[in-house]
Structure formats: structure tokens, C-alpha cells
């Protein structure tokens, strides 16, 4: 069924949807750091760092890259847009295909970001409320639920609250294990100094002649 009769989304609501997406990404990053902060012994630190990097900063972005367009194809939008009751449709009022959604979210965003995010700011001045990424693919962002703003705000507050909670736990963990981090840092510093002092002997510096020393 065509959704062309739905009203166009206000830029502020789209901004809210974007903030929800960003908050979600921030929460995942903080969860990765939380994993690292739970290291109680020096030998756990490196494995936890590698696991956090792999999951939070490599696999999650990849998954988001492929899953978000799928959500857009099936339900009309990613997490942020669904929470705020927005949908992305084409000229005929139908959801975008997977490849067009992927294109819009990647190449489209690159183009909108090309000149100081002017492509996103364009949403405010365009009569059809289209950014550059919308114009090149022929998409429109419409409001499917009137209560989307309220729900979106609640979701944003919840995500923000969760991020604050995780950040707080992070700080507590890092503080609790401060001695361990200090020990690791000190031992690395000592070994670096030892390395420098073993290299700084006159015999180890070829360009210094004995008379120059």
C-alpha cells in the first residue's frame, strides 16, 4: 500500500532519530570499554582489549552496516527512525529495496557529508524535506506514527541513562583496578628506560667519535 499520503517528517524529528542511532553506537562502545575495565589481572588486559575491539568496533559496525538497510527494507527505517515513528519511502510510497537502502545509508551519507554536512542541513531548506542523500536516491522520510516523538524521546532518555550507568561502572572498575594499571604502566616505563640506557652507551653510537664523547 502506498504511503505517499503520510506527512513529511520535520527535521527536528529526524535529528531525534539520528541522536538515538548515535546513542546506541555510543552505548555499544561503552560496553566494549566495560569489558576491558573488568580486567583484574594484567594478563587479562590484552585478551579483553582484543575482544572489545573485535566485537564493539569491528563486528558491530559491520553488522550495523548490513542490518540497518534490512530494517529499512522490511519496516521502513533503522532503529532511530522506527523509535520515532518515521519511515523512508520512495517516489511511489513503497519501502526502498535493500540495495537502495544500503546505498542511501552509505554513499548517500558520504555525499551529504561532502561539504560540512550541508547535505543534511539542506533538509531544513528543501520543500520536500529531502537531504542530498534523499534526492539522489529519490527517497522521502514520512511520519507513520504521530506518537513517535514521545516514544523517541523516551528511548533516547533510556539509552542515555544506560550509557551513563555503563560509564559510571567503567569509572568504578578502572578506579578499583588502578593499582593493576599503575603496575603495568610502571613496568613498561621501567623497561623502556632500561632499553634506552642500554642503547645510550657511547660504544653503541656509531657517529660519536671517542673524542666527541
Amino acid at each position, binding site marked *: 500500500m502506498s504511503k505517499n499520503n503520510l506527512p513529511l517528517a520535520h527535521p527536528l524529528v529526524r535529528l531525534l532519530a539520528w541522536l538515538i542511532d548515535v546513542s546506541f553506537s555510543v552505548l555499544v562502545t561503552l560496553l566494549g570499554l566495560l569489558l576491558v575495565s573488568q580486567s583484574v589481572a594484567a594478563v587479562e588486559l*590484552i*585478551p579483553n582489549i582484543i575482544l572489545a575491539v573485535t566485537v564493539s568496533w*569491528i563486528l558491530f559496525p559491520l553488522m550495523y552496516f548490513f542490518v540497518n538497510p534490512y530494517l529499512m527494507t522490511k519496516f521502513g527505517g533503522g532503529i532511530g527512525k522506527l523509535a520515532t515513528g518515521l519511515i523512508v519511502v520512495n517516489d511511489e510510497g513503497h519501502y526502498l529495496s535493500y540495495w537502495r537502502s544500503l546505498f542511501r545509508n552509505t*554513499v548517500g551519507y*558520504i555525499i551529504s557529508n*561532502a*561539504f560540512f554536512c550541508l*547535505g543534511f542541513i539542506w533538509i531544513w531548506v528543501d520543500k520536500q524535506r529531502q537531504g542530498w542523500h534523499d534526492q*539522489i536516491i529519490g527517497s522521502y522520510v514520512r511520519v507513520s506514527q504521530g506518537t513517535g516523538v514521545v516514544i523517541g524521546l523516551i528511548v533516547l532518555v533510556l539509552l542515555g541513562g544506560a550509557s551513563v550507568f555503563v560509564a559510571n561502572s567503567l569509572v568504578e572498575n578502572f578506579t578499583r583496578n588502578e593499582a593493576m594499571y599503575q603496575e603495568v604502566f610502571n613496568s613498561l616505563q621501567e623497561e623502556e628506560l632500561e*632499553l634506552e640506557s642500554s642503547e645510550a652507551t657511547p660504544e653503541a653510537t656509531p657517529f660519536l667519535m671517542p673524542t666527541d664523547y
Partner: protein
Amino acid sequence: MAQVDFGKIVNRSFYLTKKHKWLWVYGLVLAAASGSSYSNFNLPGGNSNTSTESNPSQLMETIQNQEKVLGDATTWLTQSLSQVPPTTWLLLVLGVLALIIVGIALNWVTMSFAKAALISGINAGDEGETVDLKTTGKKGWLGIKPIIRLQIRILAVTLAALIVSGVGLFIVALAFGAVQMQFMVWLVGIVMVVALAVLFVLLAMVQIYAERLIVIKGMSAKDAFNKAFSLSKGNFLHTVVMGVINMVLGCAGGCLAGIAVLILIGIPALIVLIPSFARGVENFQMPNVFAIGFLILLALLAFAGMLVFRAAIVVFTYSTWTLLFKQVIANEQE
């Protein structure tokens, strides 16, 4: 060979570039992608800590000391790394590979889209049609796959040429004896370098014509490649002249833009910074917050100005090539 009016092409390109500013969006993307062509000359640095003059026994002692220190330093690291499960390593490697592949694919798709959209926009502008992101976006979307196929084709030819040259040079080096080897290898090497240079210039021309055959004439990558090859051979001189004109105009424009930036941005920046040097260079005083803010704003303006200028140059260059292509096709049909 039919005549090409280069003056008319350049004037028309100026007009199209000035009139259709929506095309500068694609110019921005292409300019950003080509902006990493500057080479960084990293001079080889010597490690002044290695000894060539010292007593051998003292050198061995130094190395053993270093190994002992390094061994202590890496014990913790080695133990930690051994705690990482194999599945995590596998996920990490696969994830990094996937990121690299996605990055490369995204770059290719973006560039192909921007090229197709820009060429179609210039053609539409020349024909007096509407030029905006909506109309050019549709054409750009259709041009992605064939342009990527064209790029793969050109890359394959380039690699094949390099491999053949390398193998040929190796065979020549083996075939001749020690006495004649240097002379013959040098001679064959020079011939190969010249041949490769001509091939690469020809391939660059093929790319220019083929992209336009794909976007404007709707040809497939294979047909466009073959047709472009014959167009390049038949209009070699015209294409070289157009290339030289583009290079000269681009350089001249770049210099003028640089001078303009220097005057418009550099002078105000200097005026703001002069008080900081009032007591001499040794007694440099940090500018206040407002001055720093103003300097940052000026830097951003300079950056924005150069970005816009580069985008316009890209659009202009694409215009000249597109108009040359249309002239060449028209001459061929006559």
C-alpha cells in the same frame, strides 16, 4: 582527421560549470577521492643506535642486554596474547578483512556513482535539460555497475601488461650472458618502460571515452571498452591536446586560487598574529581566545574555499572531456 574546436569546448565548459552548481556536489566527492594523490617523500632515516665502530665483544654484550630487556618487556605481552582464544583471533582477522573489502567496495561504488552522475549531468546541461541531484542521481545509479566493470577491465589489462613486462625482462636477463647482460637488459628495459607509458596513456584515454559511452550512449562495459580503444587511437592527438589544456588551466586556476586564499585569508591572519610577536620571536605571546577562534575560522574558510574550487575544477575537467567526446562522436558520424 576532423577538426576539434578546443576554444569552443573550453568556453562551453566554463559556462556549464558556472550554471549547474549542483554538479559541484559530485565534483566535491571526486575531488576528495583524488585528493590523496600527493606523495609523501619519506627520506630513509638511519638508526643512529646501531654500532659499526665498536668492539665486537662489546657489541654482542649490548645486543644481549637489549634482548634481555626486550624479553622482559614482551613476557607479559606474550603471556597475555596466548590467553586470547583462537575464535577471537579468527573473528578479528575476518572482521578486519571484511572491513577492508567493504571499504574498497564502498570507494568504488561512490566513485562510479559520482562519475556517472556528473557525466550525465554535464550532458543534460549541454542539451538544455534540467540538472539537479534527482535527475543526475537516477543516471548515476544506473552507471555504477558498468563503470565498475570497466574499471576491473582496465585494471586487468594494466596488471597483465606489468606481469608480461616483468616476465619478459626476466627472460631477457637470463638469456644473455654476464658480459652483454647489462647493456641488453637496459635496452629492453627502456623499450618496455616506453611501451608501458604509451599503454597507460592509451588506457587513460580509453577510460575517459568508455565512461562517456557507458553513461551517454548506454553501452555495456565490454562494448564501451572496445569502442573507446578505437576512438582513442583515432583521436590520439586531440585527446592529448585536451589533456594538456586541462592540465594548464587546472594549474593556472590552482595558482590563482592559492594567491587569492593567501591574500584574503593570510593577511587577516597575519594582522591577528602580529601582536603576539610584538616582543620578538623568542617572547612569543599566545593569542587570546577570540584571536584563536578567528584564526580557526579563517583556516576553515580557506579549507572550504579550496574544496569548492577543486570541485569546480573537477566539474570543468569532466565537462571538457564530455564535450570533446561528443565532438569526436559527431565527427565520426559525419
